[in-house]
């Protein structure tokens, strides 16, 4: 903590904090204001006498109404939810088992295998989607949710594996050894002892994976084409930007509603999530 005169606290703590919070939250504020701003105000020129960019006098829900009634937004939400949940589930299961194996089982080449998995995470998606689109076409998965459910794990599994590996390594080995002497097989020791202790790690891996797949753009843009199959990020940008016309109101409403699930997930698990990233296990 900062000690000394009160002005030091202001200069080194409160003022930087305020700037930081302002920079972080302003885009959200802008999004909300634009969502509830009537079209008449939205397209008012900056030199008009009643130009009010930072607030609105006549808030309206017409953009949200338009979004929900005139577009497939609710379908996109459902698609995104299903795809994000399914790919997160697949990646978590694989990541937990792989992370455990790499952290605990001393098999040959465990170290180089771990590094190999990490390297696949470093390959940029903007390169990977080209070969992947070929695979998706060969398996006739194009324009179905499976195209994303099965391709998202290509970057989610390495991520979950590494996060879980670090977490498992922090759990004292003796706990497991003791369980095995107590009468548990290696698998049972993992299920009854290691996994319950690793819950914060599993939760943070899950939240991360969910967020990454919720926000994913490139694969969704490339692998899906019909409007009723799209996810929120792709649907909003492709259906509400027509040519060079930006439907700012519905666009911002879509962005706002689309970010609510992720915000909810974070706020529910924030404590576990922080523990998972920073935490250690105390015996």
């Amino acid at each position: 903590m900062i000690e000394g005169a009160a002005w030091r606290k202001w200069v080194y703590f409160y003022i930087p904090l305020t700037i930081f919070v302002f920079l972080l939250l302003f885009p959200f504020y802008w999004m909300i204001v634009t969502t509830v701003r009537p079209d008449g105000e939205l397209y008012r020129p900056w030199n008009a006498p009643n130009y009010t960019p930072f607030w609105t006098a006549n808030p309206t829900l017409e953009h949200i109404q338009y979004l929900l009634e005139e577009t497939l937004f609710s379908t996109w939400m459902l698609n995104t939810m299903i795809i994000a949940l399914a790919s997160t589930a697949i990646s978590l299961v694989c990541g937990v088992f792989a992370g455990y194996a790499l952290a605990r089982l001393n098999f040959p080449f465990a170290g180089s295998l771990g590094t190999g998995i990490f390297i696949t995470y470093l390959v940029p998606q903007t390169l990977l989607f080209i070969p992947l689109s070929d695979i998706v076409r060969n398996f006739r998965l194009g324009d179905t949710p499976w195209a994303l459910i099965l391709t998202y794990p290509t970057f989610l599994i390495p991520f979950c594996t590494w996060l879980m590996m670090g977490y498992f390594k922090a759990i004292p080995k003796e706990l497991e050894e003791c369980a095995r002497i107590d009468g548990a097989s290696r698998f049972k020791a993992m299920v009854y002892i290691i996994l319950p202790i690793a819950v914060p790690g599993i939760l943070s891996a899950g939240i991360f994976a969910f967020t990454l797949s919720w926000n994913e753009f490139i694969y969704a843009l490339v692998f899906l084409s019909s409007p009723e199959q799209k996810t929120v990020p792709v649907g909003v940008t492709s259906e509400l930007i027509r040519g060079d016309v930006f439907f700012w109101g519905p666009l911002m409403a879509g962005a706002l509603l689309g970010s609510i699930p992720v915000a909810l997930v974070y706020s529910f698990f924030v404590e576990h999530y922080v523990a998972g990233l920073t935490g250690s296990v105390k015996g």
Partner: protein
Amino acid sequence: MAQVVIRSLNKRFDEVHAVKDVNLEIRDKEFMVFVGPSGCGKTTTLRMIAGLESITSGQILIGDRVVNDLPPMDRDIAMVFQNYALYPHMSVYDNMAFGLKMRKFDREEIRRRVQEAADILGIRDYLHRKPRQLSGGQRQRVALGRAIVRHPQVFLFDEPLSNLDAKLRVQMRVELKKLHERLGTTAVYVTHDQVEAMTLGDRVVVMRDGVVQQVGEPLELYNNPVNRFVAGFLGSPAMNFAPVRVVAANGGGLRIENDGLRLLVPPDQAGRVGRYAGRELTFGIRPEDLRIATDSDPPDLTFEAIVEVVERLGSETLLDIRVGSSAMVAAVEPSAPARVRDRLRLAVNPERMHFFDPETERTV
């Protein structure tokens, strides 16, 4: 009934030969202590008995079964770890019940056994708590409880007291001893603390660099160490060593001498020491076998020393002394009138002199 038999046991980790050809028979109901400096292979040996470490070569038998290829769960053993290894997400009760649940005991039997163990260890009031709400001593008790509810054939202890503070360690040591007397289960106990080894063990195994140095009852090891390492490792303060030369004494017999000592070898030792006549030898004497000399002491069993440090412990006084070029410690009566820089004459107990070959370090 469970003795533990170890035959020609070896363990190699890549280039390190951690345990070398250990042969040992731990009798039924015996409390066997493995002691040695860190890295001597004692913990590795214990972990091989537990099945947590694979065996490079040799055999381990528990009861009459060769357990080399049995997983830990099938060896009917219980182990207490240095860091307790309590399951942090379970209550004390569940920690103790876990092993029984895994073995599918019925609920009533589990409850009875956990209560019984909790009564023995005095942790009945904490059964619903989580490990993190317990003090170090209480955690240690829970770890013990988890071991005893199973009624295993063998207890394995891996330095269980080393995380406790000094006072608690002494108290738990006594309780462990009582517990063993009450349960009578064969126990293998690993420690680097020679006091624990001496007080707890029915027999003690001293190891160094993966090799068993000596096996025997604590006092046998203390009084008749087979080599200089065992002699120096057991006992606190440690035995004094000084290089000496063996020469013929004027009135017959043998004498050992160096730049500060000039002592007559007792006649019953003369035969063995005689082979070193005219050669170097290592002389060893424990601090408590030195005392301040009186006029009645024969002069060829005394020597002169300069006091460098006086440590008054109350029950005895330790004198750090210089004898010629070697440093020694003498444990004398608490009221001894010694002061720093005093010149004193000290007498040795002739029956408790030790001699070691300077090259092989074996007892002569």
